[in-house]
């Protein structure tokens, strides 16, 4: 089975790199986190912005976790990876070639998790480059050592895990537009609301966003888990989405 899955992972990469979607998503993620990094550096220490000053450790943690803003693009990458099969009806030849549909979904999860690694590295590199170059230009860039390096690594890990969550979500919902809209609404409306409402902010720490914040948190926010707990919880969400998506893809009729 190992060689079969390896074959299927290569097939998934062929699918991904023979259309141009990946270029757009990669550029989008780099521009998004680069722009945020520039914005945060520009307004660091500014009284009105509420951002900590350039030379503070709080600013350093904030700056190196900026790449997590691109998690939305990770989710979209994962969603497209699986829902394009349904959207363009290539699920038929795909499942004809591999009737063991579980293997197809596992291969997609592996393929996208692996692709997300260089993607995360690149997005983090762009963020760091902007923070260091622009920070130095403003006179004081944070150092890329110790705890700062850890924050950066966790931000990269979050980008990978969110890609896996996206694949699972796509397998659950099948509809590409629906899944992307659902993900955007959840990330930008539902989670911020739950986070800000006192009655629900206790539950927020158990959500993917809460786990992500626990991994890379900088501000004094709501009650959060420990960092390692956040990592485990986020990985758990990724696995749960993957498992549910696999089960559903196996059971559904392809018509």
């Amino acid at each position: 089975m190992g060689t079969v899955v390896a074959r299927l992972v290569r097939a998934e990469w062929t699918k991904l790199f023979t259309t141009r979607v990946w270029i757009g998503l990669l550029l989008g993620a780099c521009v998004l986190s680069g722009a945020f990094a520039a914005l945060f550096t520009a307004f660091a220490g500014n009284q009105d912005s509420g951002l900590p000053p350039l030379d503070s450790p709080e600013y350093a943690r904030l700056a190196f976790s900026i790449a997590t803003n691109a998690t939305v693009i990770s989710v979209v990458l994962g969603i497209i990876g699986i829902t394009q099969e349904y959207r363009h009806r290539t699920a038929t030849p795909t499942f004809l070639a591999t009737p063991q549909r579980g293997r197809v979904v596992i291969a997609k999860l592996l393929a996208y998790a692996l692709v997300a690694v260089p993607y995360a590295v690149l997005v983090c590199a762009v963020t760091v480059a902007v923070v260091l170059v622009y920070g130095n230009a403003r006179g004081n860039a944070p150092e890329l050592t110790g705890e700062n390096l850890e924050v950066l690594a966790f931000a990269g890990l979050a980008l990978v895990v969110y890609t896996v969550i996206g694949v699972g979500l796509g397998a659950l919902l099948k509809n590409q537009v629906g899944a992307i809209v659902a993900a955007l609404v959840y990330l930008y409306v539902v989670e911020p609301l739950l986070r800000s409402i006192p009655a629900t902010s206790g539950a927020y720490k158990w959500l993917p966003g809460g786990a992500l914040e626990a991994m890379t948190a900088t501000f004094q926010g709501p009650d959060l888990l420990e960092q390692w707990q956040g990592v485990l919880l986020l990985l758990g969400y990724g696995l749960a989405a993957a498992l549910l998506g696999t089960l559903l893809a196996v059971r559904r009729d392809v018509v």
Partner: protein
Amino acid sequence: MPPGDVPRGPRGASTALATGQAGALGWLRCRTGRRNEEGEITSVRSAAVDPVRVEVNGLTKTFGTVRAVDDLSFTVEPGQVTGFLGPNGAGKTTTLRMALGLITPDNGTTTFNGVRYAGLPEPMRQVGAVLETAFHPARSGRDHLRVYCRATGLPVRRADEVLEQVGLGTAGRRRAGGYSLGMRQRLGLATALLGDPAVLVLDEPANGLDPEGIQWLRGFLRHLAHTQGRTVLVSSHLLAEVEQTADRVVIVGAGKLVREGTLAELRSGNAGSVLVRSPHSTALADLLRTTGTTVAPTDAIPDGLTVTGLSTDEVGRRAFAGGIELHELRSHTSGLEEIYFQLTAGQEQYAAAHAEQGAA
């Protein structure tokens, strides 16, 4: 799956691929004029394809209140083209999708030499299917094929080989989104041929093909079945399309088996109707009217008669013997067409009525 269930491998596919003698490529060469090679190549190929019999057994599927397929059983034999006929909505596509493991039947099985599709070790090397002609519009036809080469462990050059085989060679590098319907059909066929399979299943393959393409497809399918010994199952809602290609037909209506047999078997007992025109039509009618035949004046043709139960030969013989002058003598319907209409009459309404019940 116990090892005993495995059919005898993907036949000679891998050896054929290894030596570069890919599938019906040999045939393509024959087509381009090198006829002397035909015997040699086909003998190589027919030795390479192990016959695979497809058995559909008691397939049943209900969608809501509509019984799309109802206890359907039939067999598809190797070395023949089998037409899978039925009006739109008769359950042909659902049957094919169940046979290939894409839809889970409520009941029944489909086996390929005794093994279900999902149990085939390398399904694409044993069964090739063209179910729909949908591709990622931004991916080229060649890249589309390469995806499935990778997924099945075939060398990626198979993509170029099958593109040549279906006549898409130069278009392979263009985005599939720009393909015409006929090109999509050919790309679908190319996908099915990738693994050089012993069984080919095609759902309405002639849709969107121009007359020349249809002619080409007929010859292609006949060659795959008759010369190479493959099992070919072609669905269609048009009898005329299947009549010239198929050796056997399986006719379904409203999800049920209506008739199964060779075209000759179907024809027997119904020679169709004959149109005959004569200035002495009354005398001719008396001459032709014997037991088992009907003779009636033909609408819109004053001196014409429509005769059923007699062949054109017999009508001509009797007219000659009776010394009656004929101005026209031809077969009016093939007989098969009448049978098809009779067999499937009202089946569509049956399905439609059910759907309405479901909606109400």
